[in-house]
């Protein structure tokens, strides 16, 4: 099957197995407030670090829930706009499952400063470095797919390329946090904030916007203006980087996170961030107005030359899609 279903499948496993843990943790918090049952309250013999463990045992897999479908979307966009089959299909499928699996064992990297033992710390650190490997494999495979492809620089591909760049920055700075020594420096600073915004906004957000631009003709039966979409992309890309890159720098210099005020030495960076935020906002307005204006040309069944099944249907697809079951090819990315 195409790699987006593989990504969604891996995500489903994480959702099923991780969510109950936050469920029971929240129930315990409710019990603490309502029934004075104090598993996490030191006054009643409880342990707040236990709460942290339970919280992060869910919340780390949760971020993989966020990124895996986004990676699946990117894996659909790139072959279409390079008119080339995906490089390393099996590697990408298996790495989705590997991220889901190994992601269960790294939660302690959110708690390096909580008073854990040295053994626990280096175990979590090692596993965190391991879980980065499947993500890196995907990045290499996407780039390898583009190599010698017939590149068609349409808006969806712009977002996919931006994803690769921004996700890579986010991922590499994640390694800074995964190593204990550097994490002590950057823990609870705006470096962390910048890291996860590069992953979630630069990664998931841009993949989401790329997906919207990719499937928009299929969903709504109309094309949109490419030039305006590209301009919106420029504003978003520049605005995003202006907003979040300075946060890396001042984070290392000591700017704490979750503070509304800052020391005078951080003023320039914060002002640059603010300008970036406004540019980002303008970009969103341009994007939304462009997509809401339903006055583009009528969309054909396959405006991008994609090979997956959705492109065999009219845009938008008729009720119940296929009148008879379609013939499913062995290779979902049959470009050659």
């Amino acid at each position: 099957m195409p790699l987006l279903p593989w990504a969604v499948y891996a995500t489903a496993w994480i959702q099923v197995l991780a969510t109950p843990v936050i469920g029971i943790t929240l129930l315990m918090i409710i019990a603490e407030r309502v029934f004075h049952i104090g598993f996490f309250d030191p006054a009643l013999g409880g342990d707040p670090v236990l709460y942290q463990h339970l919280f992060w045992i869910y919340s780390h897999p949760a971020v993989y829930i966020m990124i895996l479908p986004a990676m699946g979307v990117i894996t659909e966009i790139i072959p279409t706009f390079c008119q080339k089959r995906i490089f390393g299909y099996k590697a990408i499928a298996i790495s989705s499952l590997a991220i889901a699996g190994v992601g269960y064992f790294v939660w302690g990297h959110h708690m390096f400063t909580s008073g854990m033992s040295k053994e626990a710390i280096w175990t979590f650190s090692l596993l965190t470095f391991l879980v980065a490997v499947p993500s890196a494999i995907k990045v290499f495979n996407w780039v390898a797919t583009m190599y010698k492809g017939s590149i068609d620089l349409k808006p969806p591909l712009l977002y996919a390329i931006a994803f690769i760049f921004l996700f890579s920055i986010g991922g590499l700075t994640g390694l800074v946090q995964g190593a204990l020594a550097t994490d002590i420096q950057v823990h609870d600073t705006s470096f962390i904030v910048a890291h996860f915004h590069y992953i979630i906004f630069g990664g998931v957000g841009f993949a989401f916007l790329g997906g919207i631009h990719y499937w928009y003709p299929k969903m709504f039966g109309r094309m949109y203006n490419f030039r305006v979409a590209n301009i919106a992309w420029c504003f978003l890309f520049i605005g995003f980087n202006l907003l979040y890159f300075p946060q890396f720098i001042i984070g290392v210099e000591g700017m704490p996170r979750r503070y509304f005020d800052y020391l005078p030495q951080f003023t320039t960076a914060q002002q640059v961030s603010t300008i970036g935020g406004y540019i980002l906002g303008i970009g969103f307005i341009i994007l939304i107005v462009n997509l809401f204006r339903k006055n583009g040309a009528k969309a054909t069944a396959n405006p991008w030359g994609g090979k997956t099944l959705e492109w065999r249907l009219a845009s938008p697809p008729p009720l119940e899609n296929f009148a008879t079951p379609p013939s499913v090819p062995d290779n979902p990315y049959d470009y050659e």
Partner: protein
Amino acid sequence: MDHLELQRDDIGAKLGMWIFIFTEILLFGGLFLVYAVMRHRYMADFHLASLQLNTFIGALNTIVLLISSMTVAMSISAVQKKDKRMATILLSITLLCAVIFLVDKYFEWGHKISISLYPGTDLMQSLKHGYILFFSLYFFMTGLHMLHLIIGAVILIVALVKIRMGLINDEHYVLLENGGLYWHLVDLIWIFLFPLLYLVT
């Protein structure tokens, strides 16, 4: 009714129920994790606090639930053999066992509440930390289990009504199977709870 038949997917229904059961196991698993950590920390206090529990009633509840698991499994066989009367009797015994369990719980909890031995009281705050945690875990785990037991009983009541109405029959019994599976889960959780709470002395 015809359209419903076209959409029917018994394998999918059973698979969905199994996945849901895994999530429930993980839900209680979080509690078992908390129990393990706290027991390790306050080993002696847990031993002593557990003496306050009535092991006889706990054992009785265990046997009652085991019998109810057996009868619900037998009721599925009865439906498969088109024996509506037997299926009704067996499911009714299962539900009777559920009621017995709840009555036992009422007496157990009632006794603790009458001597002020429950979370939030001044008596509880005055005890040692290990005791407080043991009783917190006792009430929370058995309470959450009891909630699941009531949910399971409601599902089985619905199944019983459908058997009487002929909607569950030898060709169409996946709801009873899933209800039985859920009931087995409720039983299984109790099988773990009983030794952890009552038999640690």
